[in-house]
């Protein structure tokens, strides 16, 4: 038989959880959201190759963090928690898209953003080339070079071994150098 007293406690706890979720967001959540959202969106755009899917992944990440904020804020690094969910949501979006054989249209959008950089065409091509890598390599590239995470942190975020991060990162850079040929192969070894 169920112990009534224990169920009573659960009921209180669940009601508390319910209230937490429906209240307006706590200021520390708002802070983390504004600080992290632009970066997370860029990371997700690179991983999914698609702005719409990226926004969805970012929303999923913050919605999960929001729903579990009591737990997340106590974590050592709330940013790492949000990043892990965003990345994994973005990866699963990217894999779904590749199963449907969808092709990214994001490169057009990128090109428009490159007014002002010294070699717009070549540089927009770099993002298009990254978009052609397998989803996990895209994630590793963006986490390593944009988010500045260590191999160990990336391994933790993606749930793989550090050795995998190392080998996938070098495979990714190898492909990019090969494809970007003239731009990086000759003068890109520093």
């Amino acid at each position, binding site marked *: *038989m169920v112990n009534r007293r224990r169920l009573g406690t659960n009921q209180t706890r669940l009601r508390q959880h319910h209230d937490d979720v429906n209240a307006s967001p706590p200021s520390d959540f708002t802070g983390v959201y504004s600080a992290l959202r632009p970066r997370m969106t860029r990371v997700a755009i*690179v991983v999914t190759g698609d702005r719409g899917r990226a926004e969805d992944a970012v929303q999923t990440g913050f919605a999960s963090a929001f729903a579990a904020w009591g737990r997340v804020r106590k974590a050592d690094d709330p940013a790492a928690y949000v990043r892990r969910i965003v990345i994994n949501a973005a990866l699963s979006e990217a894999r779904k898209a590749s199963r449907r054989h969808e092709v990214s249209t994001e490169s057009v959008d990128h090109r428009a953003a490159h007014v002002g950089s010294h070699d717009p065409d070549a540089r927009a091509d770099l993002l298009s080339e990254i978009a052609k890598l397998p989803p996990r390599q895209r994630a590793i590239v963006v986490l390593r070079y*944009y988010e500045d995470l260590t191999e160990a942190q990336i391994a933790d975020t993606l749930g793989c071994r550090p050795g995998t991060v190392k080998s996938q990162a070098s495979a990714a850079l190898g492909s990019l150098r090969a494809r970007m040929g003239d731009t990086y192969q000759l003068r890109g070894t*520093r």
Partner: protein
Amino acid sequence: MNLSESIRDEVASIPVGPGDLAQVQRAVSRRRARRRLTGVAAAMVFITGGTAAGVTLLGTDDEPVMAVDRADAAALTVPGTDGSVLYIPVDDRSSPVTLSGETLNGGAETLATYRGGVVLIRYWAAWCAPCARDALIEMAGDPDAGFEVVGAVIKKGSRLSWSIDFAREERFTFESIVDASQIPFAQFGTPDGALGAPATVALDPSGRVAGLKYGQFESRTEVRDFADLAR
């Protein structure tokens, strides 16, 4: 400029519009509403499949669905829970469940190994996006969790290799037995695939089914409360 610096600059220059915090809040409520509906649908399947003795279902679209034994029904009008939970009182539990077979990793697994503790069986499929990651998956393998997790893969509608990829990509830390048709849902008269996934069965220390939960677990607290049903 070298390649890694270019990557940093290129990614940093991707334009990002302003955020909308209200949208995040709406996403949270949408997810909850959707999950509630899934719970209701799954519970309907369950009812038509046959209802265990002494069990009743509570709930409407606005209030969560929970199935409990009638004696405790009054104590359990819980707001804010998602999905449905079926609790089977000790006196109504059937004989211990036997489940053994090959795992996704090519090993062999049998439930008999786990007798003496609470076991949560996660029923999942590679085609089931919500099966990917929830609080239960996060807690699996945690030595302090107080329960063991064993997976049971739904074979229908998926290839074995997809299931293997899914488990690896989603970082499942528990073993999954590759034949969900063996799992304890059979005793409720529901054949393989008839239930929504994910679904989770709680086995008590004697190996008898003590609870059934449809949908994802929202929080670790919810998982602990569910596992407590089997203590």
